């Protein structure tokens, strides 16, 4: 009854189902400052992700999609193939500023934020400079200097780690309050604890660290783990066996077992070039009266009767 069906390529839809806070959708005071989606560099992956700037770029929101297979929407009198549900949630702009500040910080100079937050690939990042919350909290991750009413900053790793530690702690509180199960053994899709889970403080810290790591670079995530005094769990990737290396040769690649070549007329058995010591000693052995192993597999030849 169910036949294999071909799936056509996804077509772009012109509408989306979004859950967003009122603040994000507040259309504003001037026309050119409406809320807008924009691509920025994801501080965790380094690739592009979608964000939303609120009215007047005063605040930034991250965009996450709930997407599962086999979902579509019925919207009014239409069907939408894309069954995604987009969540627009407020985000601390400092997470987005951090990669720019920390990369410049290695040069060890005080610089103005404007100089630091520049990105050819993501020109939209300059809009982060409008987010007051981000600018006001720069001192959490950088040293500040003020010259001629102009502020200059220099990345400070210790400060950053201390700031992130606070974030982790606040996340732990939120996890506890939200009754979110952080234990390793719990994999229920309902995320509701059946019994009281005795998750240790370390479970919470680790879980929160993992969550915060979704917003920072991998290196910083490792530093933060140390700063939180959590031992690193060896990743399962390292436990993999080393891959066997195939010897390279100039000869064209042939299948290891190609039986077709035995069928060709010009097939000739070539003597092996090199023999191991064991093979050599075997070769010297007296073989008179012995049948070769191969003969057992060859078609039976009728013995001539005398």
């Amino acid at each position, binding site marked *: *009854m*169910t*036949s*294999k*069906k*071909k*799936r*056509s390529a996804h077509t772009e839809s012109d509408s*989306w189902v979004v859950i967003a806070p009122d603040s994000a959708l507040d259309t504003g005071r001037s026309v050119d400052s409406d809320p807008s*989606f924009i*691509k920025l560099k*994801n501080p*965790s*992956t380094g*690739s*592009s*992700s*979608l964000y939303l700037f609120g009215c007047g770029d005063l605040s930034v929101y*991250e*965009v*996450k*999609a*709930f*997407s*599962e*297979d*086999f979902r579509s929407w019925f919207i009014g009198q239409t*069907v939408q193939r894309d069954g995604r549900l*987009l*969540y627009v949630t407020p985000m601390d702009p400092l997470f987005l500023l951090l990669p720019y500040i920390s990369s410049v910080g290695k040069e060890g100079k005080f610089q103005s934020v404007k100089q630091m937050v520049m990105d050819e690939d993501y020109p939209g990042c300059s809009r982060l400079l409008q987010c007051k919350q981000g600018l006001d909290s720069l001192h959490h991750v950088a040293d500040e200097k003020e010259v001629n009413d102009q502020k200059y900053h220099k990345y400070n790793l210790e400060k950053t780690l201390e700031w992130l530690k606070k974030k982790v702690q606040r996340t732990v509180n939120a996890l506890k309050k939200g009754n*979110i199960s952080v234990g390793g053994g719990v*994999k229920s*899709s309902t*995320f509701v604890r059946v019994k009281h889970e005795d998750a240790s403080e370390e479970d919470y810290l680790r*879980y929160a660290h*993992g*969550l915060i*790591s*979704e917003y920072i670079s*991998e290196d910083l*995530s490792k530093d933060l783990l140390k700063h939180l005094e959590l031992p690193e769990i060896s990743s399962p990737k390292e436990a993999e066996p080393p*891959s066997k290396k195939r010897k390279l040769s100039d000869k064209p690649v042939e299948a290891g077992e190609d039986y077709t070549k035995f069928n060709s007329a010009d097939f000739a058995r070539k003597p092996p070039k090199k023999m191991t010591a064991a093979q050599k000693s075997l070769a010297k052995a007296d073989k008179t009266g012995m049948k070769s192993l191969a003969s057992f597999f060859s078609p039976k030849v009728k013995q001539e009767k005398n």
Partner: protein
Amino acid sequence: MDLSDFEADNSVSCRLSSSIPDVCKTEDCCLGIDEAGRGPVLGPMVYGICFCPVSRKEDLKNLKVADSKTLTEAERENLFVKLDEAKSFVGWALQILSPNMISTSMLQRAKYNLNALSHDAAIGLVQYALDSGVQLKEVFVDTVGPAEKYQDKLSQRFPGVEVTVRPKADSLFPIVSAASICAKVARDHAVKSWKFAEDLGDVDTDYGSGYPNDPKTKSWLLKYLDPVFGYPQFVRFSWSTAQTLLDSKAVTVHWDDDEEDGEKAAARQNNTSVLSYFSRNKPSELTHTRDIHRFFTERKLKSINTL
């Protein structure tokens, strides 16, 4: 025949019945079971039972009930009226299985096939007769396919009742003929006066016999095929006729219990097939990106870069 109970909601299964004659509660009775509308792609399937005291079998014969298939529609109507008038000793009950119910049963995740559906409808009706106090001694059933298995099933289910399952029982036993007339009349009425739940405007009711091989039925199916929703509930979606048309004419719909090949399905779902883990070259996304935290993966949340 008053079908108003069924017409109130023609998307589910509905039971209609006559009153139970008093004589049936005191005397040993025989009961016949037959169905109408098993094959059509349109409309409900109706299961009917008829019962009367064993001693009154001759009276039933005198009503000249015969296999419903040999009768014209008008003759069937007349006979049903006669049966209904003989309510002093003849009782009947019907189970109308709506096309929607047939579709949803057969197409649900744990498949419930038409035979099981039919058997359960028959069992339900016999149980109804027993529950109503009918002194059942003999049950005659018309069967399609292997009669023995069905007979064993019914005998086990109703110990103390002699069950006879026989092909063409509707022409052999008057009580089965009577049941077949009840079922057929109900089906005719239900189809003729079908109230479409869908807003189809003036529905063209010229759908022929409703059997898949009827060209009129086929063209009606084509006419009322909606690319998104398929058909009105009047159509049995589980029929291959309906499915073939849907496959070729309607928008493709994927359900998560559709069977698909592992590798292909994985590619489509944008994740990595298990097989790829065994190959030497891992897909690039596995080698240099960190795993997304389980808070997000468990909740199926992803960052996106396009709308």
